[in-house]
């Protein structure tokens, strides 16, 4: 099936099998391996990308479903060598990652959290992260990163 969509700001048009998952399209055909696959039951959240503004688990979406949409992956958050997105910076600053495998999904999920929560509590962040599993960090520094990143995003918006 022919689909066309915007991927990290650039137009993409290609022919895909109707059974192809978005995560496989990104990783195997488009070489965007920052989106990870850590389970086969939609539990772990390592594959989270944005479709429009919303975070979605790309292992649970057929590639054909993004026809006409705008998709952002972890690779689209900042230019190579450029400044990090405030959420990426917050994870770096707060030691919110260890092995890095869950990190892209965590960061993408956290950005959607920030969009939906102008003044979140720690409990809000913990609840939101229910769909993202990390085995390394015990979540404490991820929660701190998400809150710091959220604050930075809103501060930047207000400064505009």
């Amino acid at each position, binding site marked *: 099936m022919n689909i066309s969509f915007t991927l990290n700001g650039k137009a993409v048009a290609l022919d895909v099998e109707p059974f192809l998952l978005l995560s496989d399209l990104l990783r195997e055909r488009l070489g965007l391996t920052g989106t*990870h696959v850590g389970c086969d039951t939609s*539990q772990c959240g*390592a594959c989270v990308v944005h479709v429009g503004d919303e975070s979605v688990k790309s292992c649970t979406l057929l590639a054909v479903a993004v026809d006409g949409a705008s998709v952002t992956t972890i*690779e689209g958050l900042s230019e*190579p060598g450029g400044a990090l997105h405030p959420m990426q910076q917050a994870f770096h600053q707060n030691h919110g990652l260890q092995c890095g495998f869950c990190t892209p999904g965590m960061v993408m999920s956290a950005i959607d959290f920030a969009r939906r929560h102008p003044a979140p509590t720690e409990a809000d962040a913990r609840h939101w992260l229910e769909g*993202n599993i990390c085995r390394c960090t*015990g979540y404490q520094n991820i929660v701190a990163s998400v809150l710091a990143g959220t604050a930075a995003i809103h501060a930047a918006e207000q400064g505009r």
Partner: protein
Amino acid sequence: MSEVIGIGAAPRRKEDLRFLTGRGNYVADIKRPGMVAAVFVRSPHAHARIKSVDAGAALAMPGVMAIFNGEDLKAAGVGGLPCGWGITGKDGAMKEQPHPALAQGKVRYVGDAVAVVIAETVEQARDAADAVAVDYEVLTPIINLADAIKPGAPLVFDDVPGYLCCDWELGDKAATEAAFAEPAHIARINLVNNRLVGNPMEPRAAIAEYNPATGHYTLWSTSQFPHVVRLLMGIFVLGIPQQKLRVVAPDVGGGFGVKQFHYAEEAVVTWAAAKVGRPVKWVCDRAEGFVSDAHGRDHVTEAALALDEHGKFLGLRVETIANLGGYISTFGPNIPTNLYGPLLAGVYTTPAIYCEVKVVFTNTVPVDAYRGAGRPEATFVLERLVDIAATQIGLDKAEIRRRNMIAKEAYPYQTPVMVQYDSGDPKGCLERSLEIADWAGFPARKAASAKSGKLRGIGLSTYVEACGLAPSRIAGRLGARGGLYESATVRVHPTGQITVLIGTHNHGQGHETTFAQIVCEKLGVPFENIDIVYGDTDKVQFGMGTYGSRSLVVGGAALAKASDKVVAKGKKIAAHLLEASDQDITFETGVFSVAGTDRSKTFAEIALAAYVPHDYPLEVLEPGLEEQAYYDPVNFTFPGGAHIAEVEIDPETCIVKLVNYTAVDDVGTVINPMIVEGQLHGGIVQGIGQALFENCVYDSGSGQLLSGSFMDYCMPRADNLPKMTIETHSTPCAHTPMGVKGCGEVGTIGSPAAVMNAVVDALAHLGVSHVDMPATANRIWRAMQSGSLPQAAE
């Protein structure tokens, strides 16, 4: 000269950028030209004889290139997977059984690999794997530990009479019996240490490539120890000369022990790559990981502690049955024996200890090291017993521990179970944890919870860990078949910038940062001028990898030693350039000086002189500035500490909520406090996971894994956890160069007992004295009904 970012500083991590931007390089991300896919055909039965494997129909399917089974490997002379650590029991050496890379004759657990399909695409390989017809004669499996030791239990191995791989013991039996002769009190417990699945977030994967023109093989693998994979696979399994085999472990997404074994899939894809003449890639999916990654824990234990009238421990007796699974995994037998028994002294002065472990085969996935590996199991037995004793005698749970703790002044301390602790301050950790957790204020919090209808409990656990694996001399005596030293090379470039080559492997621990800090401290070069290279046998000299909280303790020590050698050589070069004796050269913060003068050379100037030796005493000094060091520790290191958990149980739902968690840990010298804290967070939550959520469950009749996905196996989530309070209370290790002790596993060792002691405390008024892990709502409900669960009987 920029600021030295050395020991004790907390720079943000060097490795973060590539992970944060999606530019990590994990095995599954790698593509090789002409690459094809491997999919394994796995046994659906826990125990069966393989009557035939018919691949005819599958071979005819689109894209299928080859299908191999165990008999093909046998015919090709492929060896079995070796065990790296043999143990010796009461009756001599363990019964070592072959562990073929693909099953031969019999399958011994659900998930045992029977055949491999190689096809152009992974979809084609999957379809063909479904079409491989294996004719099984299904046999009765042995699943439960309690059943395994019954007479007449089915044999996992036809030529091992009974179930027993090894009947192991440690300690002074007679002295322990004497301690139990007439004690004032005996505390007893029967418990289960629940089976766990390590589940690093990155599933295992392997890609192999063969170059027929040179005879070279390359294997990319999700491994914690690529050099050891090269050694074991090259020598014992495939017979590939070491110089023709390169093993690369690039970015690896978590290990926790699961990735420190030599797995069948690594060998099979490497062998198959040469057979089909194409690079072969295998990526495990999560469901497959559940039935093929080595599992952890799985003990059934009966233990007793004898005490005098003052609550002083007199003797400890422990009988454990430990599950080894269907085959001997790389370090399997060592975990419930050498890494378990010697930890049973804990931080206490118990004079007599005797421990017996029956290590048994069952028809389950092989069991091996998982974060903590033996030491959490020992701590759990001891710390649950101490709580039971305190309740029995009517002593405060902190007080009973105080009365039995090894005093700071008593170190070095020889325990009755082999190990000698070099340093520690258990009381210091205990008192500080009590203070932070407001132990004294607990009754008020309990009363407040009671007002809202909740049952509140507080639990304490102390622990000690033997880590920094391992002193080769001791390990060798205990059956290790290799040395456990580590190596490091400091390569100074002509510009003074540095590449470190080290034999440990970084898969989340932040080595690129911590190790750079060590070099920074030692050589005074800017932090950003140091790169750490690991995980590639073609780049790095032989090393043992990362496990057993060893990277900083053993690898960091090798790195410190190599850095010192660089300084020593630098002094010789400086002496020549400054026309002084090398004894008169001092080195501080990156500058070589002639003592008492203003004559000096910077580190970068010395590096340049070493590589551009125009005016150089070549007859007495070699050009170049690159030093290598090996370090083998003289003893284990013994981190320890005290953890306090506080839980609230809703009697209506029976859900346990962890509300507070405090940890005070002695990890020796702290290089990067941010990274240490992160390691503690993660370790503690893995222990909390065992206590409250995680459970690997087999159906005892069929041997099917019932908890085979993240929908059935409950991984801890962010909203299950409170904000933890972590502190370090360090006494430097007496024998490692920087005083470090290691911090990778400590969290997982202290936390299960702290949490379960809190759970039992919350239910104590109902007569509950023990609840097995994990403390699910179902178990809490049953404990509340019966006062106490039927122990070790589920």
